[in-house]
């Protein structure tokens, strides 16, 4: 069978046109190099399969897989760039916009055909619109009423109550002799130390103040007995645990955004973005020497929100 090659688009372009030739000056050489890359890629991917089979170290899996694909990829790119017709080729950019008449016809179809129908049956259109309107509002109810409970006053309270024993993370009651001067422990309401709410909301730091220039806040004279003072551990900025205690400076530091709270002065923030002091938990030492809460916190703990009074 004889074959005839006819250029379809441009009769002046022959098959020998330089623009249909590869970019490489010595294609054989390039071809050899690409062949080496492909062989290397093939071998590495085979190694990948073998490594996977024998459960080799993850880095061996990744190395053989990644290196193999890299070689295959570079080879293929080189093939496209150096061994295929170098071009450049051109195509026309057709105007997407249609004629004014076409556009008018389209608009007219919408306005006249559709609009006419609606104008003739205004009552039906209004009722349908009303029905869909009601649905579009009530369709939001699954979002509002299924996803979660209403907050109510949840954010205003913790599990601390009058007389609640303070326990450490293991559930052991904290005794007044437990802490050396200048040390700190995270406390939870007894029975809540393992719960999500206890961990996330009730967490409180109990500090045995080492500094004699402790400033008692007004109205809180009885809140910190025996050199002990308890503050909510939730940063008032974004609710991260205020987990760093700078003992020398008597500062509680939040590692998230570096708010610092002065332990000796009502945990008032003296650095960083936190806007409020850490709420203080009123505590007392009972007859047996255990630390207990006088009441819940007197304000909402953690970051600010609209209903926070």
């Amino acid at each position, binding site marked *: 069978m004889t074959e005839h090659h006819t250029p379809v688009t441009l009769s002046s372009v022959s098959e020998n046109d330089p623009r249909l030739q590869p970019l490489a000056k010595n294609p054989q050489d390039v071809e050899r190099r690409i062949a080496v890359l492909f062989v290397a890629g093939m071998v590495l991917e085979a190694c990948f399969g073998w490594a996977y089979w024998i459960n080799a170290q993850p880095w061996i899996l990744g190395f053989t897989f990644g290196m193999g694909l890299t070689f295959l990829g570079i080879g293929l790119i080189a093939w496209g760039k150096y061994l295929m017709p170098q071009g450049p080729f*051109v195509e026309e950019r057709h105007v997407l916009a249609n004629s004014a008449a076409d556009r008018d016809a389209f608009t007219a179809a919408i306005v006249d055909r559709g609009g006419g129908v609606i104008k003739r049956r205004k009552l039906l259109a209004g009722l349908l619109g009303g029905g869909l309107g009601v649905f579009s509002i009530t369709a939001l109810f699954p979002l509002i009423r299924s996803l979660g409970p209403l907050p109510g006053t949840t954010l205003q309270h913790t599990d601390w109550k009058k007389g609640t024993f303070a326990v450490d993370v293991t559930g052991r009651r904290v005794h007044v002799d437990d802490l050396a001067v200048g040390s700190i422990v995270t406390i939870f309401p007894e029975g809540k130390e393992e719960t999500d709410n206890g961990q996330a909301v009730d967490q409180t730091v109990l500090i045995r103040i080492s500094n004699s220039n402790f400033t008692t806040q007004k109205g809180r004279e009885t809140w910190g007995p025996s050199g002990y003072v308890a503050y909510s551990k939730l940063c008032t900025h974004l*609710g991260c645990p205020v987990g760093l205690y700078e003992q020398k400076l008597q500062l509680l530091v939040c590692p998230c955004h570096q708010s610092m709270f002065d332990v000796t002065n009502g945990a008032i923030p003296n650095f960083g973005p936190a806007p409020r002091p850490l709420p203080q938990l009123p505590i007392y030492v009972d007859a047996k020497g255990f630390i207990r809460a006088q009441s819940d916190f007197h304000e909402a703990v953690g970051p600010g929100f*609209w209903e926070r009074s």
Partner: protein
Amino acid sequence: MSDSSLTTKRAKKQALGPYGKLGQAVNELDERLGVAKGGRTFMDKIFPDHWSFMLGEIALYSFVVLLATGVFLTLYYVPSTALVTYRGSYAPLYGQHVTQAFASSVDLSFAVRGGLLMRQMHHWACDIFVGAIVMHMGRVFFTGAFRKPRETNWLIGVILLILGIGNGFLGYSLPDDLVSGTGIRIAFSITESIPLVGSYLSFFLFGSNYPGTAVIPRFFVLHVLLLPAIIVGLVGAHLFLLVRQKHTQFPGPGRTENNVVGSPMFPIFMAKTTGFLLLVAGVIGLLGATAQINPIWQFGPYEAARISYAVQPDFYMGFLDGALRIWPSWTFHSFGHTIPFEVFIPSVILPGVIFNIIMAWPAIEAKITGDRSIHHLLERPKDNPQRTAFGVAFFSLIAILFIASSTDVIANFFRLDLATVLWAMRILTIAVPLIAYPLTLRIAKELRALEGSSQRKTANLVTRNAEGGYDAVSAPIHPDDALTHHTAIALPTFITEAPAGDTSDTGVRTVER
């Protein structure tokens, strides 16, 4: 083989026409779906060549890797906050009570064959995905490719960036480790900070007060189903518009507003871009193999009352974290209500403003310049000094906010006072964009004034002549520039005609353009 069987074979072959079985298949397909004309137009589609056009491809291909590795991960990850006792192979955690989400993520890393590689590749691919989108956006912005008629595709691109960042954050939260758990806590607090509806929104998102048990399964569904589906759809729309409107090109000899000069889709562009897909996947594989990322077993499981030092989110959340750090503690508290401006402004208003400006930029620029005409030829950054200066100032603001997310690390590393670093960052946030704007404007204007500054300089060959003088002749064109110096031709297609006298209509076709 007998003579007759040979003839039959030849006859069969002849009956198939000059293109054999493939030609036959095309015929069958074309009779049903009419694919021949459109298919060939698509194969002949010209893609302009420029290195910066590959940035979007990196984003696309890292997304392919994300999908592939992500499917693998879903097979082993358990989206549950139920507590289990860890009894896996990582000794330091043995016997600890951890959530199933954390335990399954650790098991994924140590017990599932190839699991650690897949996890690390997934995480690296995500960082590359978001980074490549940002770079691609920078290219589109600084070359003016977003101008009419491509405003819609710009908008889709910005939404893809936002979704990419959002889905990255969701995925980062899933292992329920100490670092990501802190991130979830912050996300709850940020939602809480919205005036009027904040506490409601956060309760609806988390299904209860923080932390609750719903957040991990909900984030999982959003991360693996809802957001990927939207992203896939928008990527499809993005590519469809690209094909429909054709790619922009840099100006050059023979390149006009009415044509596209470059390589055809098939086989040249396809070879290059498929090679690039393999390369992107290969590099992500190498990163996953050699560069540890997010070692959750070192962070440990999330416990609400514990926290780690030097906590930083993934890089694409950095600018928000930085803004939260340097924003002053201004709050509103009156009439029994609190508006936490110290959180609401840097983490809700600021990104809202930033992304709205970006989305609206094509309209803003058209409004300022009054230029509402269609553009297919790109500008170089120097060609539009005002836009370039604005873009550089904008990027520098984001960059400073990003750096500000490591104030504590910087203070520690350089042994500086934290307050010094904080104030330096606050000042730089305002100062750097203000300096960057006029500086860039000046550089762009001076570059624009230079003759031929965007062309590669051709070397001069200097020879000494017999008289002792020097002659300079310009050297031949640099091989890499050859493409821009040849006149482009329309892509020819050569068809094989059936031998004359063959009456079957399967072989002979006339192709019209």
